[in-house]
């Protein structure tokens, strides 16, 4: 849904400056509760990972197109033909809670993001 952010902006900007605040923010988005010690630990660990990735920035890559995949494959498509899915009974039997043939989930504050 394009209302989210600016599509023209790369998702990650300037990773080198990863701060303690960034780690707390990302943890909150992932619904993780971290202790102060964990925040310090992960800040250091994530910073070293990002610093390593940032080594790439020291290379002159102006002549290369950006790549998100290691192998050049495109247009993997399937025909629009129905295939049998899973049996509803089996699926719902695996759910923690079920009501009226639907998955029952806790109360949610607000609508979908």
């Amino acid at each position: 849904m394009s209302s989210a952010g600016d599509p023209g902006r790369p998702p990650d900007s300037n990773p080198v400056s990863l701060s303690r605040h960034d780690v707390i923010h990302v943890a909150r988005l992932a619904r993780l509760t971290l202790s102060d010690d964990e925040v310090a630990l992960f800040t250091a660990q994530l910073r070293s990972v990002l610093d390593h990735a940032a080594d790439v920035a020291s290379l002159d890559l102006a002549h290369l197109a950006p790549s998100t995949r290691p192998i050049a494959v495109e247009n993997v498509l399937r025909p629009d033909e129905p295939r049998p899915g899973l049996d509803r009974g089996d699926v719902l039997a695996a759910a923690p809670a079920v009501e009226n043939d639907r998955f029952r989930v806790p109360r949610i504050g607000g609508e979908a993001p």
Partner: protein
Amino acid sequence: MSGEAAWEMVIGLEVHCELATATKLFCGCRNAFGDEPNVNVCPVCLGLPGSLPVLNAFAVELAMRIGTALHCEIRPSTFARKNYFYPDQAKDYQISQYDQPINTGGWLELPDGSRVGVTRAHMEEDTGKLTHVGAGGRINSAHHALVDYNRSGVPLVEIVSEPDIRSAGQAKAYAAELRGILVATGASDGRMEEGSMRVDANVSVRSFGTDSFGTRCEIKNLNSLRSLGRGIDYEAARQIALIESGERVVLETRHWDESAGRTESMRSKEEANDYRYFPEPDLVPLVPDAAWRERVRAGLGPMPADRRSALVAALGGSASEAEADQIRAVVDLGLDELVRAAVDGGAPAPLALARAANEVAAQSDAGLVLTPESFAALLALESGGQLSATQSKAVLGLLLERGGGDPSAVAEELGYEALGADFLAGVVAEVIAANPDEWARYVAGDDKLTGLFTKEVMQATAGKANGKEVAAELRRLRG
């Protein structure tokens, strides 16, 4: 200056269109509306570990048709994960196109000639359907929620307009025209009430003459063209009142409450916008080649604007305001083929247009199919004088009820064989004899009495007489 006259609305629309495919976007589960809950599910659309999405070729084809019809550039594109915690997606992310959408930079022309820019039209998967339980189903106070994943993974194209729209009426015209295009491309059935087409509106206001934009609010839950218009007008008035009383508009998403007639705050946008998009590692780039793009372009039929122009041409190159309304209705309902066939068969275009826009359109909800041949044959009978207008409408009613048929046979069945001129003259003479005072007034020049005589003749012939012939006979006798 103050008051609404000093303010200009700035509106952009985001339209989600469910594609009319047989299966979902990334798996072979059926794309069907109204099935029993959770019957169209599989490991992919339930987000089970180890499952892998594979892109539906026909969904891509439909997305390309939409882009082509909206004059977009069709580009190499990729998919991304939009991460968020909400149970309408079992995966905790939605696969969408983000920084590299398939269609960009198009436009849509409205019937009044104005153009609205189309920023992008990208592909994404739909979410599951939530039912809130307790507290009357209200979201914020519900006790718990139930999820049906049948809709999860259904292919969508989201069409994002530029903020080029300046009134609620123009927004409605855009949505209606876009719906016509989506139907014409075969991409969608365009049913807003079933959620096949969903419209969100970004609304802001600014004082006239300003170039910069005011703070916008996104309005959701606009489930009909009527809601779209009302929601926009309400929201603009709300923002104007805030600004004029010295307050600020807050960037947020608001929910339109149709019964209360107002928008309500749902959440602030800054809070919700951190989706941590990243490239979907399980899907490869989509790069439609020139041959495929050309096939799509060549396969597109005429769009609603072309079809309206064709009807205006059939009318002789210009249409009155009433005819323009009829043309819009006929094209929206896909009845223009009927009119074309009737005109080709020699019927006057205004008559064929009126019958299609009134009598046929009134019955189009029943989903009945009247063949162009049948409609053309009926209009030939009416315009040739073998059937009166009343008789023609009655035959048309039966044809629609039965889903088609031979108009001559139906007319005969109703006893509408053309009355002989002698017989008609006899009936007219009897009616005149029975109404001597009225006849004297008619002879003296009161033409309004034509109606009374015609009505009497119709009663005497059980509706079989042709009104035009009755009037001609009356004029002949008056001398």
